[in-house]
């Protein structure tokens, strides 16, 4: 009586499989180790200055009483303006491209390629554009509004791409079902497609926001000042948290470097909170069609 054996005759591909698996573990290890080192050193160094003084006081020449209040406020203002600008424009563009644009037309294809390329342009290039066009060209000056507009341009391609993905993920059967009930195109988009795409759009927008709030280079170019001791206004001088950190790091005194680490902790806390919120939205509203 013969017994069926399921053993492979020779270990096909076992070695390459093991090597590949090891490579994957090393890759993930590098990522986690880098992030872990960063977090541990920053927290260990900056923890002692993370207090109400840092959050509520303006900067000062004395590191003991120096805070980041104007920078934190400006970062919040920038974030709010950024969402107010980039979400309507980005979602509008995405609706046009997904629901209206005829891909047989050359200008629509050009638009598509253009947006994909813009997503890969380094942010400092947008900063130069902002300096030449917003600050000098139309004479807006070195104000917070100019910074928000430039950050809008930086994240717009990301927002558009995320919104397009979310709109495309709404199945056609939903559109057809709505049309078959006598809905107009506008009603189909406004009452079915957009509500169904909202979680995806929100997730993409929040991730874009958190990327923008960490940006320093374009803000430096449009004139974020490194030392602002008063609360920002939309049409006034401004700084931002990453710019403030940059300024503190550049100081020779050791205490300011510690302060910079504290600022980084605040910035990281804001960004990680935003990202966690994005993940929460994604999981909360995840749809199964």
């Amino acid at each position, binding site marked *: 009586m013969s017994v069926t054996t399921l053993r492979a005759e020779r270990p096909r591909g076992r070695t390459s499989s093991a090597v590949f698996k090891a490579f994957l573990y090393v890759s993930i290890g590098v990522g986690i180790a880098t992030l872990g080192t960063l977090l541990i050193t920053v927290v260990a160094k900056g923890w002692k200055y993370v207090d109400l003084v840092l959050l509520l006081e303006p900067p000062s020449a004395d590191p003991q009483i120096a805070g980041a209040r104007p920078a934190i406020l400006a970062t919040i203002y920038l974030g709010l303006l950024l969402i107010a600008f980039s979400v309507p424009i980005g979602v509008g563009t995405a609706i046009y491209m997904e629901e209206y644009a005829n891909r047989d037309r050359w200008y629509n294809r050009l638009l598509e390629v253009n947006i994909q390329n813009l997503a890969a342009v380094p942010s400092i290039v947008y900063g130069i554009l902002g300096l030449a066009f917003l600050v000098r060209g139309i004479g807006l000056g070195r104000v917070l509004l100019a910074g928000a507009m430039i950050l809008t341009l930086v994240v717009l391609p990301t927002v558009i791409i995320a919104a397009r993905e979310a709109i495309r993920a709404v199945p056609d059967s939903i559109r057809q079902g709505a*049309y078959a009930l006598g809905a107009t195109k506008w009603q189909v988009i406004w009452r079915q497609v957009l509500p169904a795409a909202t979680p995806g759009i929100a997730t993409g927008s929040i991730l874009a926001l958190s990327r923008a709030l960490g940006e320093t280079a374009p803000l430096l170019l449009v004139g974020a000042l490194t030392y602002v001791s008063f609360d920002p206004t939309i049409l006034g001088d401004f700084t931002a948290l990453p710019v403030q950190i940059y300024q503190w790091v550049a100081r020779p005194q050791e205490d300011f470097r510690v302060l910079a680490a504290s600022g980084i902790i605040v910035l990281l806390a804001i960004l990680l909170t935003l990202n966690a919120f994005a993940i929460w939205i994604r999981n909360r509203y995840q749809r199964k069609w």
Partner: protein
Amino acid sequence: MSDTIPGVSMDRLVARQQQLPEPSQRDVVFDVDDLGVSYSGKPALKDVNLEIYRNFVTAFIGPSGCGKSTFIRCFNHMNALIPGAKIHGTIHYHGADLYGSEVDPVEVRKRIGMVFQKPNPFPKSIYDNVAFGPRVLGMTDDLDGRVERALEHAALWDEVKDRLKASALSLSGGQQQRLCIARCLAVEPEVILMDEPASALDPIATTRIEDLMHALKKDYTIVVVTHNMQQAARVADMTAFFSVERGEEGHRTGVLVEYDATPKIFTQPSDSRTEDYVTGRFG
């Protein structure tokens, strides 16, 4: 008269047929003349001539690719949503040209509702699914009453009346399809088009949809596409059999082979292609 299809009693079929009005007393809802549809210049369906009568269930049967789904989508302008689709010939709806230049597709779809192959409830509550049509059409007086009546007519009210706010996606497939029928009834159409409405459902859910068609026939005109011959025999008063013709270069075009009272199609078809199909010799 022999039993040509298993599972269908021909005697009952004929008895049912005798309750229908005489041809002279039938009210024509759609009059289709030389209709053809092409996608990007390639004909998908050609030379269709038939009439669809009020308060009848009319079934379109035929093999895959015979253009029956393409055809049913002509009645509510759904083909207009497909880029490259072109329609030739005419369809008159109560005497009015359905594809006249002044016709508004939205107005057409309001009167001619549609139920799709795969249940496609909106990712909203049961209530909002049914209320969607009345809301977009501005029929918002007594919305609660409308929703309740539509769900009752679709034989779903008793199952969902205690959870109208629950997501429509929490319903079973059969319930979802009845919800889609309710959604369609809520805008008070005259005609209901059903594109293989039971093909994604289990046999029990299918039976309930078929029972529903019988019940709805009193108030609505129903056109149903099905690939299931027994289903056509069970529900339809009139049946149209479509087939595929191979043109030059092997291009497939759907044609209407035969259109007649259902018992006639299933027992004494006048075309041999129909006979081959209904007796299962199609190949």
